[in-house]
């Protein structure tokens, strides 16, 4: 219901799909043959994917397929064994997580990682950190410049919190928030870093259906308002099929299918990965 007009995906020369409206623009993320081994185990292999600058992309797959590992590779928490990541055309090889963030990737975490002892608004202010213009000396002396920068930061934080419907919670301690609000606060904090692409790791986990429906609207609104790309990992198929334009399915660390939600829904390989061979046969018999 959210996306009445389904986006058409078009192939790029390198077997990569992006939304038609993003054609001619540089993909925000261009991932080529990414792979990582842990000891002898290949966790991710030959992962190739491009994300358009305003695309909402989904990354799905069974538990343990390597989805979060891919997020960790994209944010340089792990350094890849093979392959390359071009973020806005720049190779992120060798950068730290912080540098990658400043270049344009912000993320949320599957197991929520807030600054629990700090207030909600301070959590967001930490996200704004690099855009607050105030020198260390100015902070030490609390010069007028400091007050100006702090005021600007506070206003921006309240705007962002309001965007996710959280302005009334600004002064609460982050770890006192209910689960759903903590997930949304992680999104606000990530948005505060002015990313070019937002990675959401199971944003709807632990949410009830009405919260999830609200989240779906918010994800689309984030893309429309900030004109950024969103890539999300999610097990809630209503959410994935409802908001994602392009979907990649991974299993055993490899992409087994890419395409629009319709294509993915009907792909026998995907059905087999989720339901197993017997399950897939039963599914086919039913359908």
């Amino acid at each position, binding site marked *: 219901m959210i996306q009445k007009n389904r986006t058409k995906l078009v192939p790029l020369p390198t077997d990569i799909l992006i939304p038609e409206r993003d054609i001619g623009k540089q993909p925000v993320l261009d991932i080529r043959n990414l792979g990582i081994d842990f000891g002898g185990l290949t966790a991710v292999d030959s992962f190739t994917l491009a994300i358009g600058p305003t695309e909402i992309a989904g990354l799905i797959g069974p538990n343990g397929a390597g989805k*979060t590992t891919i997020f*960790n590779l994209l944010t340089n*928490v792990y350094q890849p064994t093979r392959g390359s990541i071009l973020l806005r055309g720049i190779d992120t090889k060798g950068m730290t997580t912080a540098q990658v963030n400043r270049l344009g990737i912000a993320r949320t*975490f599957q197991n929520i990682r807030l600054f629990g002892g700090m207030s909600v608004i301070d959590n967001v202010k930490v996200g704004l950190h690099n855009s607050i213009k105030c020198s260390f000396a100015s902070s030490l002396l609390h010069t007028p410049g400091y007050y100006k920068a702090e005021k600007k930061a506070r206003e921006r934080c309240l705007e962002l919190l309001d965007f996710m419907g959280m302005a009334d919670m600004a002064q609460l301690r982050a770890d006192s928030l209910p689960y759903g609000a903590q997930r949304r606060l992680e999104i606000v904090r990530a948005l505060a870093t002015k990313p070019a692409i937002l990675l959401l790791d199971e944003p709807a986990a632990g949410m009830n259906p009405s919260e999830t429906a609200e989240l779906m609207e918010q994800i689309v609104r984030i893309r429309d308002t900030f004109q950024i790309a969103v890539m999300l990992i999610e097990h809630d198929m209503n959410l994935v099929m409802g908001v994602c334009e392009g979907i990649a399915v991974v299993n055993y660390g490899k992409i087994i299918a890419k395409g629009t939600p319709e294509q993915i829904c009907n792909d026998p390989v995907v059905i087999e990965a989720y339901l197993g061979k017997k399950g897939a046969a039963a599914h086919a018999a039913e359908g």
Partner: protein
Amino acid sequence: MALLSNFINGLGLGSIYAIIALGYTMVYGIAKMLNFAHGDVIMVGAYVSFVSIASLGTPPLLALVMAMAVCTILGVVIERLAYRPLRASASLAVLITAIGVSYLLQNAALLIWTSNTKVYPSIVSFAPLHLFDGKLTITGEMLISVLTCIVIMVGLTLFTGKTKTGKAMRAVSENRDAAELMGISVNRTIAITFAIGSALAAVAGVLFCSTYPVLNPTVGSIPGIKAFTAAVLGGIGSIPGTLVGGLLLGIIEIFGRAYISQELSNAIVFAVLIIILLVKPNGLLGKKVNEKV
């Protein structure tokens, strides 16, 4: 010949460090905490055996057994009263508490036995070996230290590998929650770990004070920290690593004292700790641990 003599002294000291380091490494591996008070348990063991020999006139072996018994009880009591209530707390809180326990033991000893340094009677009664026409002397204490260390290492390796309790320890060290779900009592396992570590600390205390016959309330703290260095050097959580780390550290210390500077010998050992943590933070034989993101 001086080189060989230093080497042997280093082995003797290193064996004692290895025995102390076992206590650190087991507690760190299983209870995931740095038991800062471990060095002071050594001191208590030394005092108990001293009182037993000097005041009660017991034979050395009985004194050793008494020291082990007292330290075992002490270790278990400390764990029960001070550490167990903090098991879910941040590591900062646990470490501060452990420092508190360390100071408690030191200052209690200060009040009981005063700060006067006592001369510790060696528990080893046989004469030193003279080799190469007396050019090389191996004291009985050195021999006993090395032998005890080997026996303990072998015993502990068999214990953790073969017995039910030992396997429970390894399970708790791998994953506490999963072990609990498999019906292993985490509290009991950690208590046993503290008991074994403290008993070993008593042995180490007796050996250390027999080799270096001075006894005062702070006698355990520096060897304690050095043994922790040895545990880190070998790799926390690994029994063979502890042996390697202990021996290496003993040799480094004796050689540093002999060839670099007497005054800076502690600084040299601490520098080793710092370098190891920076270059090879998991030690020589340790496992790499990653935080899950």
